[in-house]
C-alpha cells in the first residue's frame, strides 16, 4: 500500500470516527469503496472528495439547526440585520488583526520591516481598505448588513488614519 492510499485510509477513518450519526453509514460506505479503487492517487482523491461531501452535509445540518433552533430562527428582521452588521465588523477587524500579525511576523524574518512606515501603511491600511471596498461591493446585494458592517469598519479605520496623520504630520 503506497503512501497516498495509506493517507486516504487514515483520512476516511478519521472522518468515520468524527462523522455525525446520520452520516456515519455514508462515511463507512466511502471508506469501504477505497478497497476497489485502482491507483493510490485515485484513492486519495476519492478520500478527499468524500471528506468534503461529509463536511458539507454536516455543515448543512448545523446551518439548519442554527436557523431553526437558535437565535437566528427567533430573531426578527432588525435582530438579523444587527447580527449581519456585527459579523461584517468582526470579519473586517479580524482581517486588520491578521494584517498586523503578518507584519509583526515579517518583522521577525526581515528585521526592521515592521518599523518601515511604507510597509505599515501598505499592510494595515492600503491592502485591508482595498479588500474592504471589494468585499462591500461584492456583498452589497446579497448580504447587505454584512457589507454595511465591513464598510463601517473601513470608514473607522480610514478615520483613525486621517486623525493620526493630522496629529503627527
Amino acid at each position: 500500500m503506497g503512501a497516498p492510499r495509506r493517507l486516504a485510509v487514515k483520512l476516511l477513518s478519521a472522518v468515520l470516527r468524527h462523522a455525525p450519526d446520520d452520516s456515519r453509514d455514508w462515511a463507512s460506505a466511502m471508506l469501504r469503496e477505497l478497497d476497489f479503487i485502482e491507483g493510490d492517487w485515485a484513492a486519495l482523491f476519492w478520500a478527499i472528495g468524500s471528506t468534503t461531501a461529509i463536511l458539507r452535509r454536516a455543515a448543512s445540518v448545523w446551518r439548519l439547526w442554527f436557523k431553526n433552533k437558535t437565535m437566528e430562527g427567533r430573531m426578527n428582521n432588525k435582530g438579523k440585520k444587527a447580527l449581519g452588521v456585527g459579523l461584517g465588523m468582526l470579519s473586517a477587524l479580524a482581517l486588520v488583526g491578521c494584517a498586523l500579525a503578518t507584519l509583526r511576523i515579517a518583522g521577525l524574518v526581515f528585521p526592521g520591516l515592521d518599523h518601515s512606515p511604507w510597509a505599515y501603511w501598505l499592510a494595515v491600511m492600503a491592502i485591508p481598505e482595498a479588500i474592504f471596498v471589494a468585499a462591500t461591493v461584492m456583498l452589497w446585494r446579497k448580504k447587505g448588513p454584512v457589507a454595511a458592517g465591513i464598510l463601517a469598519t473601513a470608514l473607522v479605520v480610514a478615520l483613525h488614519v486621517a486623525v493620526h496623520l493630522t496629529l503627527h504630520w
Partner: protein
Amino acid sequence: MKLRLSPQTVLILDAFLEQPADWKYGYDISRNTGLKSGTLYPILMRLAERSLLETMWEPGEPGKPPRHMYRFTPDGLRFARANAAAGTAGSIGQQVALNRMKGWLFY
C-alpha cells in the same frame, strides 16, 4: 417532490436507469458517470433522503466489511422515468465525456 435536477443529478439518474433493478456500488457509479466522490455522494444522499434510492449493505467475504449498494425505489424509478421522458437528460454522453476530461486534467 422537490429535487434540484442539476446536470450531475440527471447523469446519476440516467446511470441507474440503465439497469434499474440492479444494485450499484458508489465507485462504479463514479466511474460510469465520471463524477468525483465529492459530487456523487451528496446527490446519492439527497436521493436516498427523498426515498428515491434505497440502500443496502452487501455482505462481503468473511473478515471483510460489507459494501454499500444503491438502487431505485419504485418512486425513484417513476421520478427518473418522468424526468427522462421530459427530456431533462439532455446530452448525457457529452456530460460524461466532459466529466472524464476534467478528471484527466486534474489527475
